[in-house]
């Protein structure tokens, strides 16, 4: 069964899902939702995603939204079928994976999201971004990245010695930081963080997603 992914190749949350599906070898079709024209807020998409956003998936009759819930589902499916395990083997490993997935949601993503809004989205809409807010977020992000640096000095990946969804979930927003955000030096200045970023962003699944036609 080919999974239908509703989204766009230039939006972070659909990228998270597509990378995960490539990693795990689940085939999918991307059904494009035109974010520029607000298609995600139209009734048809609201049936799939009641908050009017992307992505959502349809796997036969089974429907999900929220990119991190989607990747957890497929990671669990793959692990339980004896396929690639991106969740962790033991209860304790899985708990550490969950911990760093929460860190991404609570401590990492909000800062990057705010910066995207001010640096990219608002200017695209003809408004001026708040550069003071960007600097404030950057200062906070430096402290967060120090914690990541410390963690990655003790283990190769965030959840432990293996690549898991805890690392994968960071790919789309870190890409923004490095590209449109122009803040690659925040990563480069931290040796372990930099090595981790080079490692995860050179994975075939991520390169494949980056190659998808916009």
């Amino acid at each position, binding site marked *: 069964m080919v999974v239908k992914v509703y989204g766009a190749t230039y939006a972070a949350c659909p990228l998270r899902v597509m990378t995960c599906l490539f990693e795990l070898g689940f085939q999918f079709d991307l059904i494009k939702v035109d974010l520029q024209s607000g298609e995600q807020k139209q009734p048809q998409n609201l049936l799939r995603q009641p908050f009017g956003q992307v992505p959502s998936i349809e796997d036969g009759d*089974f429907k*999900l939204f929220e990119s*991190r819930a989607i990747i*957890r589902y497929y990671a669990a499916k793959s692990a339980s079928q004896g396929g690639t395990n991106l969740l962790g083997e033991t209860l304790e490993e899985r708990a550490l994976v969950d911990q760093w997935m929460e860190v991404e*949601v609570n401590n990492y993503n909000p800062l990057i999201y705010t910066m995207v809004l001010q640096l990219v989205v608002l200017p695209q809409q003809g408004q001026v971004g708040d550069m003071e807010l960007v600097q404030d977020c950057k200062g906070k992000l430096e402290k967060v990245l120090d914690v990541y640096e410390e963690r990655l000095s003790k283990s190769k990946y965030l959840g432990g010695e293996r690549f898991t969804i805890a690392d994968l979930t960071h790919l789309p927003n870190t890409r923004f930081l490095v590209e449109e955000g122009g803040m690659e030096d925040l990563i480069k200045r931290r040796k372990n963080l930099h090595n981790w970023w080079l490692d995860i962003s050179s994975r075939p699944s991520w390169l494949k997603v980056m190659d998808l036609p916009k």
Partner: protein
Amino acid sequence: MAIKVHGSPVSPAAKRVLLSLAEKQLDYEFVLVDLATGQQKKQPFLSLNPFGQVPGFEDGDLKLFESRAITRYIAHAYADKGTPLISEDPKKMAIIGVWMEVESQRFDAAGQKLSFEILVKPMKGLTTDDAAVEQLQGQLAAVLDVYEARLGKSKYLGGEEFSLADLHHVPIIANLMKTKVKAVFDARPAVSAWAAALLARPAWLKINAA
């Protein structure tokens, strides 16, 4: 005692963990972290959570932080004790997972800030930002409109059974019910009934009586 929770009784995140332990009828030691003196930003607490936030958690040798990772661990590790908080069925668990994300990113985004503006700021001698409260209430209302539709079709957010998807909301809902934001819940019958049921759960009453 094998299970220890490091936190503060005023922290909604710490209460999230305490509630899940109470639902599971598990014994634990509560280690007080004094937020007023910034104890959470210093060692030894920082070794438990390098981000300097409560709660921290120990179960034997396992050390964790992030309340929603801790509750997930408790739900899995003690699946056979007390109230089931997750599902073994992968598709049912995925749906629970959807609403856990919704709570964490959409409900909490507005709810936690409202709780902070209205309840916490005055305690610290700061002034509530009324304009922010208006904006956040509007944000919360939009989220609760989606909840109203969902709870019209499903007894609990994740499905027909109580789960972590509902549990994670309880501490912030309890706080907001003490404020004028209660009206936002009351205006939505299914949401109102669901919130009342959550706050009436014996496990919640137990940890607040302590």
